[in-house]
């Protein structure tokens, strides 16, 4: 067992536990985005930063990848931590403003505006879907490609993958929902799940007063024979 101090409280946890798990165990909330139980820690989003050490040696580390050490002093919401987190949130908002998950985190931290050039990406490259596909679904159908500002997630050669079983796990775990259904482009289809949905408009001849609240509707975009 290893004993460490989190926000002044002594915690004893087993060796190999991460700071994040220890903090959750004792009840200090740490916001996370790329972390998910059952997937290997990744440390990509930096939202879970905490401050360790004291005085001049104090530094920020990502708690989801940092294993506990004997006598470690952790502060999960010091001024410095909160400032760093707000910065991360602003940057995340700048890239993916329409994500509900990120908006929720932002409102928790009182971030109402962001100062950066607004982009409307649909991916924060947290790698959750990649790890889900590899570790839980054992498929390895999607992965990172390119690098730098061109880094993205997708199937090799951007075509339908041979090993993808259309499980939809990647979409399920996505905090911004990058891998949206692309049924109207079957060549690049990743999920195709909507093909199983019963869309009223497909059989609208049977309805006198059919109304559709979806705009645009996926079913409308499926090419008609």
């Amino acid at each position, binding site marked *: 067992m290893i004993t460490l101090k989190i926000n002044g409280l002594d915690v004893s946890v087993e060796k190999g536990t991460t700071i994040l798990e220890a903090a959750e165990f004792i009840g200090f909330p740490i916001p996370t985005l790329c972390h998910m139980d059952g997937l290997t820690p990744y440390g990509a989003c930096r939202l879970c930063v905490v401050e360790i050490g004291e005085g001049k040696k104090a530094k920020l580390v990502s708690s989801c990848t940092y294993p506990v050490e004997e006598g470690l002093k952790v502060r999960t919401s010091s001024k410095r931590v909160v400032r760093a987190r707000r910065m991360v949130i602003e940057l995340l908002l700048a890239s993916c403003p329409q994500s509900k998950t990120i908006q929720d985190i932002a409102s928790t931290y009182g971030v109402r505006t962001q100062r950066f050039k607004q982009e409307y990406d649909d991916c924060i490259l947290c790698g959750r879907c990649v790890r889900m596909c590899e570790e839980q679904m054992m498929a*390895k159908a*999607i*992965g*990172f*490609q*390119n690098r730098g500002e061109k880094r993205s997630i997708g199937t*090799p050669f951007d075509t339908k*993958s041979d*090993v993808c079983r259309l499980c939809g796990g990647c979409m399920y775990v996505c905090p911004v929902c990058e891998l949206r259904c692309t049924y109207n482009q079957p060549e690049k289809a990743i999920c195709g799940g909507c093909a199983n949905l019963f869309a009223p408009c497909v059989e609208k001849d049977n309805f006198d007063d059919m109304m559709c609240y979806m705009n645009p509707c996926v079913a409308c975009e499926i090419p008609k024979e």
Partner: protein
Amino acid sequence: MKSTGKKKKRTVISDEPDNCTEEDVKEADILAIVRKHDGARGGLIAMLEGIQQKYGYLPENALRILSNATGRSLVDIYGVATFYRSFTLHPRGKHLVTACLGTACHVRAAPRIVEELEQQLGIKASETTPDRNFTLETVNCLGACALGPVVVIDGHYFSKVKTAGIKKLIEEARNGFPDEKMLEREFAFPVEASCPQCHHSLMDAGNIIEGYPSIRVDISAGEKSGWLRLVSLYGSRGFESEHELPVGESVAFFCPHCKARIAGTTLCTECEATMAGIRIGEGALLQICERRGCDGCRLELDAVKSQV
């Protein structure tokens, strides 16, 4: 005369990409490359390099075969192939034009150079001309910042390039850089060779190779023995020999005058074969690898220093 020469060259070039279409990817070739690297996990980049060397780019089929052969997922291989700038998934043109856009080149108007290149070639950066003659790429630094803006065409480095000179550069590349260009390069200077044992000159003025007197030595390899003439240009690998020397075969060098073995003092750092030591000028020792096809060489100036 010049124009006909150009035309001839162009037809040759335009035929070439047709030789490396997707269908031409042979499974056996890929498997041979995989075997060469034992299909080891760490050998992925080496295998991709092998494939790229063979086809000039990484064909989709080749990557799929590689994935099956090594048991690595296609995602991993594709990730690595797209991560590194030196790999390309699309066929490159006959001539590769690389413009540096690093900080030092940037402030010396490299973006204008790229614009000019784009305009002259009629393509955007990282594209290939429709006739598959030129591929234009940008890099972020070539490590030659003092020479900026730098443009590299087919391995030839051009420093302090000006927009006005680009048309000429492209024209030169289209015609193929003449071999004399190589001779003008700094490292290709002629050397005077002599035997390290008897100090007798090994120069053979009667036999000129590549415009300079050749270096004549006797060689023996297994049962065979005979003469070998090396190009006396430092940096050049050309030679003539009495016998056919297969690539990879190691031969022993002897002085034609004192018949002594001209052995070097160390083993080749590239392939660990024995090296031959030739006395250059006033006592420097040039060691060259005795294995055909190996570029290993080592120039030792200590001998000169001790004399001075």
